[in-house]
C-alpha cells in the first residue's frame, strides 16, 4: 500500500503531524553570540539539555530525551572519528551537520516503518570559518539551516520565529556574559509565552497578543518552580583546547534575580 505515491505522501504528512504534536510543549533553546563566545540557554525539569560535542562545538536539543541522547552520541562519534582520521582542525560544524546529523535525521524521518527522532537540534561552533554559520538548527525531518548572531529551536516553528524576531538586530559584540544571559533568558521567555498563547488561540485567524515584561517574569518563575535554567558557553578565553563550559547556578542567578 505504501508503494503507492499518494499513500507514502500521506504517511509522511501523518509523521509531520505526529512530530508537531509531540514537540509542541517543548521548552525552547536560545543561542546568542557575546563578546567572548557563544551562549546556549534553556530550561529543563532535570536532565541536561546542553552538551559539549568537540573542542569548539556544542549541542542542545528539544524533544524526547532518549532521541536527544541518540543524536548527541551520534554527533560526538562523528566528530571524534573525524578528528582521529584527519585532525582536530578538520572538525567543522558545517560538515558535522551537512554530512552527519542532517542526513541521519532525514533517514529516520523518511523510513516510515521506523520511529523518527522526536527532536529539534541546535548546534553551534565557536569562530567558524564563515561567521554566518555560527549556529545550525536541524528539524526532525533533517532539514537544516545556518545562522550567524543568534538561533533558536522551540516546540513550534512560530515560537522559534518569535524568539528570533526578539533577538533581531543584536550581534552580541561588546556584550558581557551577564548581559548575554539576561538577553537570552528574555528571548527564551518570549518563546515560552508565545507558544502558550498560540496553544490558547481559538482559531487560526486569531492574533497572538503582545508580550509584556510581566508575562516574561511569569514564564521564568514557572520554569523555576518545575525545574531550572541551564546554560553553557563556548568561551574563547578558556586556556584549554576545549572551550565548552557549563555555567554554574551562581553565574545564572544574576540573570534570574530580577524575576524572583
Amino acid at each position, binding site marked *: 500500500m505504501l508503494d503507492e505515491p499518494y499513500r507514502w505522501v500521506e504517511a509522511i504528512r501523518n509523521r509531520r503531524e505526529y512530530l508537531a504534536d509531540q514537540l509542541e510543549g517543548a521548552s525552547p533553546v536560545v543561542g546568542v553570540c557575546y563578546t567572548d563566545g557563544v551562549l546556549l540557554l534553556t530550561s529543563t525539569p532535570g536532565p*541536561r539539555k546542553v552538551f559539549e560535542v568537540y573542542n569548539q562545538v556544542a549541542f542542545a536539543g528539544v524533544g524526547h530525551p532518549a532521541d536527544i541522547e541518540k543524536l548527541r552520541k551520534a554527533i*560526538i*562519534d562523528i566528530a*571524534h*572519528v573525524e*578528528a*582521529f582520521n584527519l585532525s582536530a582542525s578538520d572538525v567543522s560544524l558545517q560538515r558535522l551537520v551537512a554530512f552527519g546529523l542532517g542526513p541521519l535525521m532525514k533517514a529516520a524521518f523518511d523510513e516510515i516503518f521506523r520511529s523518527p527522532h522526536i527532536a529539534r537540534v541546535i548546534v553551534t561552533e565557536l569562530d567558524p570559518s564563515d561567521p554566518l554559520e555560527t549556529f545550525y538548527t536541524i528539524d526532525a525531518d533533517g532539514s537544516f539551516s545556518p545562522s550567524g548572531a543568534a538561533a533558536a529551536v522551540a516546540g513550534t516553528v512560530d515560537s522559534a520565529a518569535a524568539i528570533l524576531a526578539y533577538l533581531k538586530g543584536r550581534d552580541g559584540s561588546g556584550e558581557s556574559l551577564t548581559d548575554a544571559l539576561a538577553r537570552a533568558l528574555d528571548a527564551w521567555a518570549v518563546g515560552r509565552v508565545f507558544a502558550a498563547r498560540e496553544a490558547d488561540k481559538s482559531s487560526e485567524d486569531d492574533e497572538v497578543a503582545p508580550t509584556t515584561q510581566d508575562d516574561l517574569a511569569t514564564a521564568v518563575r514557572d520554569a523555576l518552580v518545575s525545574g531550572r535554567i541551564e546554560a553553557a558557553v563556548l568561551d574563547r578565553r578558556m586556556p584549554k583546547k*576545549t572551550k565548552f563550559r557549563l555555567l554554574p547556578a551562581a553565574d545564572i542567578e544574576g540573570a534570574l534575580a530580577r524575576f524572583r
Partner: protein
Amino acid sequence: MDSGDFLSILKERGQLPGAAEATQAVAQNGAPGMHTEGTTILALRYRDGVLVAGDRRATAGNVVVYDRAAKVLSVDDRSVLALSGSPANAYEIARLLEISFQHYRRTQLQELSLDGRLRTLSRLLRDNLPMAMQGIGAVVPIYITHEKDGPQAGGRIYFYDVLGANFETVDFCTTGSGSPIIRGALYFLNRWERPFVERDEAEALRLVLQMLETAAEFDTATGGFKSTAAIYPQVMRVTGDGITDISEADLATHYAHLQVGG
C-alpha cells in the same frame, strides 16, 4: 548500553589501524630494513608532583634520523605519555589514547577513571602486539598522571611492557635504550643520597638533566643537549595545577648552572 568506548567504534567502522593486516603484509613481503627507534625517557616523583623528560633523538640503526623528536606528549589536562620505541606506532597510540579519553568524557559526561585509562592503554598495546612481535613496531610507554582526589590522589607513574601489562613505580621510572645506563645511578641517588620525593623542582630538574646527559654519553640512540643548535630535551611537570612544559630558557639556565655546554 553504550559504553563510550572509542576503540570499539573505530573497529566497527573498520578504521582502527590494522595491526593484523600489517602483520600479513610483513609476512608476505618481509620487514622493512630500517625503522626509527631508540631513546631515553625518565620520570621521577619530586616534592610537587612528577617530572617527565625525554631526549629528542630518533635513530634507525646507526643513523640519526631526526634530532628534534617529541617523545613526551600530553594526553589530557592531567596526564602525559612518554614513549620509547617505534615513533610511528607510538604517536598513533598517543593520538588514539587522547581522543578515546575525550570521547569518553563527552559521551558519558564523566571522566574515565584511572583504572579505565590504564586499561585503555593496555588494550592499545595488545592490539599493537603483532607489530611488536615482527620486531618493527614495539612501543614501551610510561603513563604519568596527577589525580586530584580518591585513593590514588597525587602524582603517579605507570610503566608498561610490550604486551600491555602495566606496573606502578613509586620513585622513578626510565625506559628506552639509554635507560640501563642510568637506572642504577638513579636507584643509588634515591636510596643513599636523598629521596627524590623530598627534592624541590630545581634540584629534581638538574638531576633529570644530568641523567639524560649521562645516557647520551654512552648510548648513541640518545641525543644530548646541544647549545649551538638549541636542541633541548623535553621536560614536563605534572602537578596538581596541571601539565606545563619547562621552558627552554629555564633549561638553559639549569644547563649553565650544571656547566653543561653541549
